[in-house]
């Protein structure tokens, strides 16, 4: 009998594993039983195996100069099929609406003309890129990849915290977490029907190929990375490797007459699609930051000429601006004539003086976010902040009310997490990943569940000591997921089984006699 859950006490937040009465929720019953049979010592053995696996594969991140194995918590997070279908549809719906919004604001701006979203909001957004106006992506897609951050509130519903439409990262950890879990805890999988996540790179490649400039039959796709010193470099090599495409740095690319080439041993080779993991700011020194050394001069013009597709498209940041975020429900009804399936977290627009004053009065109860930030940079959590920080935030809000939004604190749900000598509740979020190939938006069944490891903390970013969990989306019970149809090949059902392999020579009789023949000093 295990002792892992002996001291587990859920706090007031929604707990993923236990209901209010402390009974395991139905999706967790099997997992709960399995955990009960494990002792702290067994669990420790698995943890050691996990660390070794990550370290050997080089899946590490550096925390204050030290290489550490990627922090995967071994208790998975389980999402039942019903809940997943809401998330899946909700995320896809959002991506479709945001896609339409981007294509609108970078062309006619109908939504602005109709007054649904104030024109000034878009034109004052720092991430609105004028050079992009008039670029029409080949298959109409600007958001090839999206990561939508979700949290589960105290009522058990999922809320959207923010959209990431620029270079959302984390999918490599989703896939590696799953692989490592299957190796370290194989027996947990046998009693669950968990949906697979590893088709993501293939889907992404399909979407990137579909986005190639018109008339290119066999497009050359590359992944553009800032380089080995980037904190997400592992993900860049992972995706390039899993897609079988070249991973390039800015210096490997060259533009001539508005065509992008990569320098190879066989001469310059034309590039059709660039999946870039570099910010807009650094992408092209001719258009954006002129001191950028990691970009490719001329790539923006090449894109304007339709000679190369940049994915995700430039200027997407205008749609994941935190203030624009507050209008996403309006976009969904404006463009799609649908009700939003996933609600936003209550957010205050500080440009409105009433809302600003309301927020200023409740500095210590709200969360403040810079509108153009990503990855948790610049975030101020009111209840956790000190006097000094709050004072600084007040000044910042007053001097730049367009630059900030205020949000209600969401009591993130908790999940049993291995800390110290047992399992304790820790707060988690969820980032599902969507791929848009122009035909449909596909959401990978899973996602990155991030864990805030310090007790009570609500900050899940790995740069701030966050961990992660393998996210199990369960297949609908009773039905197996449909097999993908691929009727290319012949197949013979009643083949005789293969003959057994050649057993090799056997010399038992001789062996016996060799043993009988005793040699040696008598």
């Amino acid at each position, binding site marked *: 009998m295990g002792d892992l859950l002996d001291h587990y006490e859920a706090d007031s937040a929604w707990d993923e594993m236990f209901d209010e009465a402390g009974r395991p929720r139905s999706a967790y019953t099997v997992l709960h039983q399995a955990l009960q049979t494990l002792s702290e010592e067994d669990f420790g053995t698995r943890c050691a195996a996990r660390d070794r696996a990550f370290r050997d594969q080089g899946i590490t991140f550096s925390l204050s100069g030290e290489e550490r194995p990627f922090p995967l918590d071994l208790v998975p997070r389980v999402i039942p099929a019903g809940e997943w279908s809401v998330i899946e549809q909700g995320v896809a719906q959002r991506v479709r609406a945001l896609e339409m919004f981007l294509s609108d604001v970078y062309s006619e701006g109908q939504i602005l003309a109709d007054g649904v979203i104030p024109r000034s909001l878009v034109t004052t957004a720092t991430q609105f890129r004028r050079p992009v106006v008039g670029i029409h992506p080949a298959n109409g897609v600007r958001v090839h990849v999206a990561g939508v951050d979700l949290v589960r509130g105290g009522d058990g519903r999922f809320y959207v915290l923010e959209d990431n439409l620029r270079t959302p990262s984390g999918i490599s950890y989703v896939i590696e977490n799953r692989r490592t879990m299957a190796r370290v805890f194989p027996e947990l999988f046998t009693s669950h029907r968990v*949906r697979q996540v590893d088709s993501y790179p293939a889907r992404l490649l399909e979407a990137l190929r579909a986005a190639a400039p018109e008339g290119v039959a066999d497009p050359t796709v590359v992944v553009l990375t800032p380089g080995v010193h980037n904190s997400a470099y592992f993900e860049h090599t992972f995706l390039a*490797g899993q897609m079988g495409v070249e991973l390039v740095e800015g210096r490997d690319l060259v533009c001539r007459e508005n065509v992008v080439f990569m320098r190879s041993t066989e001469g310059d080779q034309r590039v059709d699609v660039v999946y870039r993991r570099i910010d807009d700011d650094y992408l092209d020194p001719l258009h954006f930051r002129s001191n950028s050394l990691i970009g490719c001069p001329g790539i923006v013009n090449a894109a304007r000429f339709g000679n190369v597709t940049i994915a995700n498209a430039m200027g997407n940041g205008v749609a994941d601006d935190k203030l624009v975020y507050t209008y996403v429900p309006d976009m969904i009804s404006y463009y799609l004539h649908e009700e939003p399936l996933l609600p936003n977290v209550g957010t205050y627009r500080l440009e409105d003086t009433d809302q600003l004053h309301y927020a200023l009065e409740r500095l210590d109860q709200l969360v403040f976010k810079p509108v153009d930030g990503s990855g948790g940079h610049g975030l101020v959590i009111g209840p956790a902040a000190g006097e000094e920080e709050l004072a600084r935030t007040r000044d910042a809000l007053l001097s730049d009310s367009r630059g900030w939004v205020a949000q209600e604190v969401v009591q993130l749900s908790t999940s049993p997490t291995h800390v110290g000598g047992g399992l304790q509740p820790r707060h988690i979020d969820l980032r599902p990943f969507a791929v848009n190939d122009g035909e449909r938006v596909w959401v990978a069944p899973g996602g990155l569940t991030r864990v805030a490891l310090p007790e009570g903390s609500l900050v899940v970013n790995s740069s701030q000591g966050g961990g992660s969990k393998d996210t199990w989306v369960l297949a609908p019970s009773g039905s*197996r997921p449909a097999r993908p149809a691929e009727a290319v090949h012949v*197949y013979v059902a009643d083949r005789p089984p293969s003959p*057994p392999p050649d057993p090799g020579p056997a010399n038992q009789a001789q062996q016996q006699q060799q043993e009988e023949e005793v040699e040696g000093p008598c």
Partner: protein
Amino acid sequence: MLSRIAESLYWVGRYVERAEDTARILDVHIHHLLEDASVEEDVACRALLGVMGITDASDPVDINRVTERLAFDASNGTSIRGALVAARENARGAQESLSSELWECLNSTYNSLPSQVERAARAGPHAFFSFVKERSAMILGLTEATLSRDDGWRFVVLGRSLERIDMTTRLLMACFGEPCGPSEWVTTLRSCGAHEAFLRTYRRPANASSVAEFLLLDRLFPRSAFHALGVAEECLAALEPRSGRAGLEGKARNILGRARTQLEFRSVGELIAELPRHLDQLQAACAQAGEAVALRFFHHTKAIEWSLEEAVGHT
């Protein structure tokens, strides 16, 4: 060199390759089975056993049973453990023709089998498969680094290549015996350690014909049937140099050369259209080549047992 030694070296090559390939196949398939909710465990497990020519009467067959039979069963020459025991047994009788480093590596692999099997019971089978893959990589490395390129080395390489063709063929048979989706093709490629090489070559997701093309016909990938056939042929060519001006004398070389040309001059479309037949032929060619090698080089003298009764009977 002595026929007996040659035979042992040949079987060292075969058994080590068999252990490695089986470990690769199991490692990938077991985790695929665990991770993919849409796979029928019983069907997939039977297919896996079928690869090694085992039909299991028990019902249903589960992962544990498959790992037991194909990985840990010491009494069975087709299991990983059995193959490694047999490889070491063959090496023991040919120690003086191997380098001591190679012998030591084979022997220490054998020695640590019980503890590795025990560890797998605690830490999951993946630990065991990694161990096997690591050790076989070491054995292969020592073969390349410490053996002269003489006939002894050639017999090791010949055995390894024939086994490799045989295993690749088996794997493909299992895959094409069932309707497969993209994730099965990835699994097939992974089992041959070929997924990344494949992606770098084709730069697009796997499908039936590209996987068949890569694993059967690719000229550069060392685990493709075509490549392994070529290596085996080279070994045989060096083992029995051509004597006359026309034709070939070596029967094994003849068989392999024909099998290679059967693949080489066919388009993928033609291969796919009749894949089961081609795979059967390839496997038959492997078996025949094995027999021909034994006949030509190993000169089996059946241990002669003098029997008094029979002698009396003839008079």
